[in-house]
Protein backbone atom coordinates (compact mmCIF):
# COMPACT_ATOMS: atom_id res chain seq x y z
CA UNK A 1 0.00 0.00 0.00
CA UNK A 2 1.40 3.38 -0.99
CA UNK A 3 2.19 6.04 1.57
CA UNK A 4 1.72 8.79 -0.96
CA UNK A 5 -0.83 11.28 0.32
CA UNK A 6 -3.96 11.49 -1.80
CA UNK A 7 -4.21 14.32 -4.32
CA UNK A 8 -6.01 17.29 -2.80
CA UNK A 9 -9.62 17.75 -3.83
CA UNK A 10 -9.64 20.77 -6.10
CA UNK A 11 -13.32 21.34 -6.66
CA UNK A 12 -15.45 22.75 -9.46
CA UNK A 13 -13.82 26.19 -9.42
CA UNK A 14 -10.49 24.69 -10.42
CA UNK A 15 -12.19 22.65 -13.16
CA UNK A 16 -14.10 25.70 -14.39
CA UNK A 17 -10.91 27.78 -14.52
CA UNK A 18 -9.01 25.08 -16.38
CA UNK A 19 -11.89 24.48 -18.80
CA UNK A 20 -12.20 28.17 -19.62
CA UNK A 21 -8.42 28.40 -20.00
CA UNK A 22 -8.45 25.50 -22.49
CA UNK A 23 -11.30 27.15 -24.35
CA UNK A 24 -9.30 30.38 -24.51
CA UNK A 25 -6.24 28.58 -25.95
CA UNK A 26 -8.51 27.04 -28.56
CA UNK A 27 -9.87 30.47 -29.46
CA UNK A 28 -6.31 31.75 -29.83
CA UNK A 29 -5.44 28.85 -32.15
CA UNK A 30 -8.53 29.43 -34.30
CA UNK A 31 -7.77 33.15 -34.51
CA UNK A 32 -4.18 32.46 -35.54
CA UNK A 33 -5.34 30.06 -38.25
CA UNK A 34 -7.58 32.83 -39.62
CA UNK A 35 -4.83 35.42 -39.81
CA UNK A 36 -4.77 35.47 -43.61
CA UNK A 37 -8.42 36.39 -43.95
CA UNK A 38 -8.98 38.62 -40.90
CA UNK A 39 -6.83 41.55 -39.85
CA UNK A 40 -8.06 41.47 -36.24
CA UNK A 41 -6.98 37.85 -35.78
CA UNK A 42 -3.68 38.63 -34.05
CA UNK A 43 -5.36 40.93 -31.56
CA UNK A 44 -8.04 38.35 -30.81
CA UNK A 45 -5.38 35.67 -30.31
CA UNK A 46 -3.45 37.93 -27.94
CA UNK A 47 -6.57 38.56 -25.87
CA UNK A 48 -7.47 34.89 -25.78
CA UNK A 49 -3.97 33.93 -24.66
CA UNK A 50 -4.02 36.60 -21.96
CA UNK A 51 -7.36 35.28 -20.71
CA UNK A 52 -5.97 31.73 -20.74
CA UNK A 53 -2.98 32.78 -18.63
CA UNK A 54 -5.27 34.63 -16.23
CA UNK A 55 -7.62 31.65 -15.91
CA UNK A 56 -4.81 29.17 -15.31
CA UNK A 57 -3.65 31.32 -12.40
CA UNK A 58 -7.22 31.67 -11.13
CA UNK A 59 -7.74 27.89 -11.30
CA UNK A 60 -4.74 27.35 -9.03
CA UNK A 61 -5.91 30.15 -6.72
CA UNK A 62 -9.32 28.52 -6.53
CA UNK A 63 -7.79 25.17 -5.57
CA UNK A 64 -5.94 26.93 -2.72
CA UNK A 65 -9.04 28.86 -1.62
CA UNK A 66 -11.16 25.70 -1.72
CA UNK A 67 -8.65 23.72 0.35
CA UNK A 68 -8.37 26.57 2.88
CA UNK A 69 -12.16 26.83 3.18
CA UNK A 70 -12.56 23.07 3.63
CA UNK A 71 -9.88 23.05 6.31
CA UNK A 72 -11.47 25.99 8.13
CA UNK A 73 -14.88 24.29 8.00
CA UNK A 74 -13.43 21.08 9.41
CA UNK A 75 -11.57 22.86 12.19
CA UNK A 76 -14.35 25.36 12.91
CA UNK A 77 -11.58 27.92 12.57
CA UNK A 78 -11.96 31.56 13.54
CA UNK A 79 -10.66 32.27 10.05
CA UNK A 80 -13.71 30.59 8.54
CA UNK A 81 -15.50 33.72 7.34
CA UNK A 82 -12.36 35.19 5.78
CA UNK A 83 -11.60 31.96 3.99
CA UNK A 84 -15.17 31.61 2.73
CA UNK A 85 -15.00 35.16 1.39
CA UNK A 86 -11.85 34.19 -0.49
CA UNK A 87 -13.58 31.04 -1.74
CA UNK A 88 -16.32 33.25 -3.25
CA UNK A 89 -14.02 35.90 -4.70
CA UNK A 90 -12.02 33.56 -6.91
CA UNK A 91 -14.99 31.84 -8.65
CA UNK A 92 -16.45 35.29 -9.31
CA UNK A 93 -13.27 36.25 -11.15
CA UNK A 94 -13.35 32.93 -13.00
CA UNK A 95 -16.96 33.55 -14.06
CA UNK A 96 -16.09 37.00 -15.42
CA UNK A 97 -12.95 35.86 -17.22
CA UNK A 98 -14.82 32.86 -18.68
CA UNK A 99 -17.52 35.25 -19.94
CA UNK A 100 -14.77 37.22 -21.69
CA UNK A 101 -13.49 34.02 -23.27
CA UNK A 102 -16.99 33.25 -24.54
CA UNK A 103 -17.24 36.78 -25.93
CA UNK A 104 -13.88 36.55 -27.69
CA UNK A 105 -14.86 33.12 -29.02
CA UNK A 106 -18.07 34.59 -30.48
CA UNK A 107 -16.09 37.40 -32.10
CA UNK A 108 -13.68 34.87 -33.58
CA UNK A 109 -16.48 32.50 -34.68
CA UNK A 110 -18.12 35.34 -36.62
CA UNK A 111 -14.93 36.29 -38.46
CA UNK A 112 -12.74 33.21 -38.67
CA UNK A 113 -12.09 30.80 -41.49
CA UNK A 114 -15.23 28.66 -41.97
CA UNK A 115 -13.21 25.46 -41.61
CA UNK A 116 -12.50 26.16 -37.94
CA UNK A 117 -15.69 28.01 -37.02
CA UNK A 118 -17.12 25.02 -35.17
CA UNK A 119 -14.03 25.00 -32.95
CA UNK A 120 -14.54 28.62 -31.99
CA UNK A 121 -18.22 27.93 -31.30
CA UNK A 122 -17.29 24.88 -29.21
CA UNK A 123 -14.84 27.00 -27.23
CA UNK A 124 -17.60 29.53 -26.56
CA UNK A 125 -19.88 26.77 -25.28
CA UNK A 126 -17.14 25.41 -23.00
CA UNK A 127 -16.44 28.88 -21.64
CA UNK A 128 -20.14 29.50 -21.03
CA UNK A 129 -20.38 26.23 -19.11
CA UNK A 130 -17.37 27.24 -17.03
CA UNK A 131 -18.87 30.65 -16.31
CA UNK A 132 -22.11 29.04 -15.19
CA UNK A 133 -20.30 26.54 -12.95
CA UNK A 134 -18.23 29.31 -11.36
CA UNK A 135 -21.31 31.49 -10.81
CA UNK A 136 -23.00 28.54 -9.11
CA UNK A 137 -20.07 28.33 -6.69
CA UNK A 138 -20.56 31.98 -5.77
CA UNK A 139 -24.26 31.30 -5.19
CA UNK A 140 -23.51 28.24 -3.02
CA UNK A 141 -20.99 30.06 -0.84
CA UNK A 142 -22.15 30.37 2.77
CA UNK A 143 -21.20 34.05 2.98
CA UNK A 144 -23.17 35.09 -0.11
CA UNK A 145 -26.80 36.14 0.41
CA UNK A 146 -29.33 36.20 -2.44
CA UNK A 147 -29.13 40.00 -2.69
CA UNK A 148 -25.32 40.07 -2.56
CA UNK A 149 -23.82 42.17 -5.40
CA UNK A 150 -21.16 39.49 -5.91
CA UNK A 151 -23.88 37.02 -6.81
CA UNK A 152 -25.49 39.53 -9.17
CA UNK A 153 -22.13 40.02 -10.91
CA UNK A 154 -21.51 36.29 -11.18
CA UNK A 155 -24.96 35.57 -12.61
CA UNK A 156 -24.62 38.45 -15.04
CA UNK A 157 -21.28 37.01 -16.21
CA UNK A 158 -22.94 33.61 -16.71
CA UNK A 159 -25.76 35.27 -18.71
CA UNK A 160 -23.29 37.23 -20.83
CA UNK A 161 -21.36 34.04 -21.52
CA UNK A 162 -24.50 32.15 -22.48
CA UNK A 163 -25.50 34.92 -24.87
CA UNK A 164 -22.03 34.92 -26.44
CA UNK A 165 -22.12 31.15 -26.81
CA UNK A 166 -25.51 31.36 -28.58
CA UNK A 167 -24.06 33.94 -30.96
CA UNK A 168 -21.04 31.75 -31.62
CA UNK A 169 -23.10 28.60 -32.15
CA UNK A 170 -25.42 30.45 -34.55
CA UNK A 171 -22.62 32.04 -36.55
CA UNK A 172 -22.19 30.72 -40.04
CA UNK A 173 -25.39 28.68 -39.82
Amino acid at each position, binding site marked *: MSNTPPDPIRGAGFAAGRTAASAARLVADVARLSGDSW*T*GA*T*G*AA*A*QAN*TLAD*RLETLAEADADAFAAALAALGEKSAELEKRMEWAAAVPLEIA*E*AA*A*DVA*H*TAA*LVAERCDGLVRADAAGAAALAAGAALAAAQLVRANLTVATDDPRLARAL*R*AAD*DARYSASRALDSGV
Partner: protein
Amino acid sequence: MSRDEELVERCLAGERDAWDDLVLAYSRYVYAICSQGYRLQGADAEDAFQDVFLRVYDRLGTLRDPAALRPWIAQLTRRVCLDRLAAGKREEPLELEDTGIDSTIEELDEAFAVREALTELSAECQEVLDRFFGRDESYRTIGEELGIPSGTIASRISRCLARLRERLTAGDATAGRNEGGSPSGEVGT
Protein backbone atom coordinates in the same frame (compact mmCIF):
# COMPACT_ATOMS: atom_id res chain seq x y z
CA MET B 1 12.95 63.30 -36.11
CA SER B 2 12.59 60.57 -33.46
CA ARG B 3 11.98 61.32 -29.80
CA ASP B 4 15.58 60.36 -28.98
CA GLU B 5 17.06 62.57 -31.68
CA GLU B 6 14.96 65.44 -30.38
CA LEU B 7 16.03 64.77 -26.79
CA VAL B 8 19.72 64.71 -27.70
CA GLU B 9 19.38 67.89 -29.73
CA ARG B 10 17.63 69.67 -26.85
CA CYS B 11 20.21 68.50 -24.30
CA LEU B 12 23.12 69.57 -26.45
CA ALA B 13 21.45 72.92 -27.10
CA GLY B 14 21.40 73.44 -23.33
CA GLU B 15 17.63 73.48 -23.03
CA ARG B 16 16.70 73.70 -19.37
CA ASP B 17 14.22 70.81 -19.05
CA ALA B 18 15.86 68.51 -21.57
CA TRP B 19 18.12 66.68 -19.09
CA ASP B 20 15.20 66.07 -16.76
CA ASP B 21 13.25 64.65 -19.69
CA LEU B 22 16.15 62.40 -20.66
CA VAL B 23 16.54 61.05 -17.12
CA LEU B 24 12.79 60.56 -16.87
CA ALA B 25 12.70 58.73 -20.18
CA TYR B 26 15.58 56.39 -19.35
CA SER B 27 15.61 56.02 -15.56
CA ARG B 28 13.53 52.82 -15.48
CA TYR B 29 15.53 51.34 -18.33
CA VAL B 30 18.89 52.03 -16.68
CA TYR B 31 17.69 50.85 -13.29
CA ALA B 32 16.28 47.67 -14.82
CA ILE B 33 19.62 46.83 -16.49
CA CYS B 34 21.44 47.42 -13.20
CA SER B 35 19.03 45.44 -11.06
CA GLN B 36 17.70 42.75 -13.38
CA GLY B 37 20.69 42.35 -15.68
CA TYR B 38 23.55 42.68 -13.19
CA ARG B 39 21.68 41.98 -9.95
CA LEU B 40 22.93 45.15 -8.32
CA GLN B 41 20.79 45.95 -5.32
CA GLY B 42 20.21 48.82 -2.93
CA ALA B 43 23.04 51.35 -2.68
CA ASP B 44 25.05 49.58 -5.43
CA ALA B 45 22.19 49.96 -7.89
CA GLU B 46 21.61 53.57 -6.82
CA ASP B 47 25.30 54.44 -7.24
CA ALA B 48 25.47 52.75 -10.63
CA PHE B 49 22.35 54.62 -11.68
CA GLN B 50 23.89 57.99 -10.69
CA ASP B 51 27.15 57.10 -12.38
CA VAL B 52 25.43 56.21 -15.66
CA PHE B 53 23.64 59.53 -15.88
CA LEU B 54 26.79 61.44 -14.94
CA ARG B 55 28.56 59.73 -17.82
CA VAL B 56 25.63 60.41 -20.14
CA TYR B 57 25.87 64.09 -19.15
CA ASP B 58 29.63 64.19 -19.71
CA ARG B 59 29.72 62.28 -22.97
CA LEU B 60 26.50 62.96 -24.82
CA GLY B 61 28.45 65.19 -27.19
CA THR B 62 30.45 62.15 -28.35
CA LEU B 63 27.33 60.25 -29.46
CA ARG B 64 27.62 60.13 -33.24
CA ASP B 65 24.08 59.02 -34.04
CA PRO B 66 21.46 60.62 -31.77
CA ALA B 67 18.89 58.06 -32.93
CA ALA B 68 21.06 55.39 -31.25
CA LEU B 69 20.67 56.97 -27.83
CA ARG B 70 19.11 53.89 -26.26
CA PRO B 71 21.78 51.34 -27.28
CA TRP B 72 24.41 53.88 -26.30
CA ILE B 73 22.91 54.26 -22.83
CA ALA B 74 22.61 50.48 -22.56
CA GLN B 75 26.30 50.10 -23.39
CA LEU B 76 27.27 52.78 -20.88
CA THR B 77 25.16 51.10 -18.22
CA ARG B 78 26.78 47.72 -18.87
CA ARG B 79 30.21 49.26 -18.53
CA VAL B 80 29.30 51.01 -15.28
CA CYS B 81 27.80 47.82 -13.81
CA LEU B 82 30.84 45.72 -14.78
CA ASP B 83 33.17 48.35 -13.26
CA ARG B 84 31.14 48.30 -10.07
CA LEU B 85 31.19 44.50 -9.88
CA ALA B 86 34.95 44.47 -10.50
CA ALA B 87 35.52 47.15 -7.86
CA GLY B 88 33.49 45.13 -5.38
CA LYS B 89 35.83 42.17 -6.02
CA ARG B 90 32.94 39.81 -6.29
CA GLU B 91 33.95 36.18 -6.39
CA GLU B 92 31.91 35.25 -9.43
CA PRO B 93 33.83 35.60 -12.69
CA LEU B 94 32.62 38.56 -14.71
CA GLU B 95 32.13 36.36 -17.77
CA LEU B 96 29.48 34.48 -15.82
CA GLU B 97 27.91 37.74 -14.68
CA ASP B 98 27.59 38.73 -18.31
CA THR B 99 25.85 35.47 -19.26
CA GLY B 100 22.26 36.15 -20.12
CA ILE B 101 22.71 39.91 -20.03
CA ASP B 102 22.15 40.20 -23.76
CA SER B 103 18.81 38.47 -23.55
CA THR B 104 17.83 40.51 -20.49
CA ILE B 105 18.65 43.73 -22.31
CA GLU B 106 16.84 42.45 -25.39
CA GLU B 107 13.73 41.86 -23.27
CA LEU B 108 14.06 45.27 -21.66
CA ASP B 109 14.49 46.86 -25.08
CA GLU B 110 11.35 45.14 -26.27
CA ALA B 111 9.37 46.22 -23.20
CA PHE B 112 10.72 49.72 -23.59
CA ALA B 113 9.80 49.84 -27.26
CA VAL B 114 6.26 48.67 -26.47
CA ARG B 115 5.95 51.30 -23.76
CA GLU B 116 7.18 53.97 -26.12
CA ALA B 117 4.84 52.85 -28.90
CA LEU B 118 1.94 52.84 -26.44
CA THR B 119 2.44 56.52 -25.71
CA GLU B 120 1.89 57.23 -29.42
CA LEU B 121 -1.58 55.67 -29.38
CA SER B 122 -4.78 57.56 -28.60
CA ALA B 123 -5.65 58.08 -24.94
CA GLU B 124 -8.58 55.70 -25.36
CA CYS B 125 -6.39 52.94 -26.77
CA GLN B 126 -3.84 53.40 -24.00
CA GLU B 127 -6.57 53.22 -21.41
CA VAL B 128 -8.27 50.14 -22.85
CA LEU B 129 -5.00 48.22 -23.31
CA ASP B 130 -3.76 49.13 -19.85
CA ARG B 131 -7.00 48.06 -18.22
CA PHE B 132 -7.16 44.71 -20.04
CA PHE B 133 -3.49 43.68 -20.14
CA GLY B 134 -2.12 45.63 -17.19
CA ARG B 135 -4.92 45.60 -14.65
CA ASP B 136 -6.66 42.34 -15.62
CA GLU B 137 -10.05 44.03 -15.86
CA SER B 138 -12.97 42.23 -17.52
CA TYR B 139 -14.63 43.56 -20.68
CA ARG B 140 -17.69 44.47 -18.66
CA THR B 141 -15.72 46.43 -16.07
CA ILE B 142 -13.79 48.27 -18.78
CA GLY B 143 -17.03 49.09 -20.58
CA GLU B 144 -18.69 50.35 -17.41
CA GLU B 145 -15.71 52.41 -16.32
CA LEU B 146 -15.22 54.05 -19.71
CA GLY B 147 -18.89 54.32 -20.66
CA ILE B 148 -18.42 52.12 -23.72
CA PRO B 149 -20.69 49.15 -24.63
CA SER B 150 -18.90 46.10 -23.21
CA GLY B 151 -19.70 44.13 -26.35
CA THR B 152 -17.33 46.37 -28.31
CA ILE B 153 -14.33 46.13 -25.97
CA ALA B 154 -12.74 43.03 -27.52
CA SER B 155 -12.91 44.58 -31.01
CA ARG B 156 -11.49 47.84 -29.69
CA ILE B 157 -8.61 46.01 -28.06
CA SER B 158 -7.89 44.21 -31.34
CA ARG B 159 -7.89 47.49 -33.26
CA CYS B 160 -5.64 49.14 -30.68
CA LEU B 161 -3.23 46.19 -30.79
CA ALA B 162 -3.12 46.47 -34.58
CA ARG B 163 -2.20 50.15 -34.24
CA LEU B 164 0.41 49.31 -31.63
CA ARG B 165 1.89 46.76 -33.98
CA GLU B 166 2.06 49.34 -36.77
CA ARG B 167 3.93 51.72 -34.47
CA LEU B 168 6.33 48.99 -33.39
CA THR B 169 6.96 47.94 -36.98
CA ALA B 170 7.64 51.56 -37.89
CA GLY B 171 10.03 51.77 -34.93
CA ASP B 172 11.83 48.60 -36.04
CA ALA B 173 12.26 50.04 -39.50
CA THR B 174 13.84 53.18 -37.99
CA ALA B 175 16.09 51.06 -35.76
CA GLY B 176 17.06 48.98 -38.78
CA ARG B 177 18.18 52.10 -40.62
CA ASN B 178 20.34 53.00 -37.63
CA GLU B 179 22.07 49.64 -37.50
CA GLY B 180 25.49 48.96 -38.95
CA GLY B 181 28.90 50.33 -38.12
CA SER B 182 29.35 51.83 -34.70
CA PRO B 183 26.60 54.37 -34.25
CA SER B 184 27.05 54.81 -30.59
CA GLY B 185 30.15 56.89 -30.29
CA GLU B 186 32.59 56.69 -27.40
CA VAL B 187 31.55 54.69 -24.38
CA GLY B 188 34.92 53.79 -22.89
CA THR B 189 35.63 54.50 -19.25
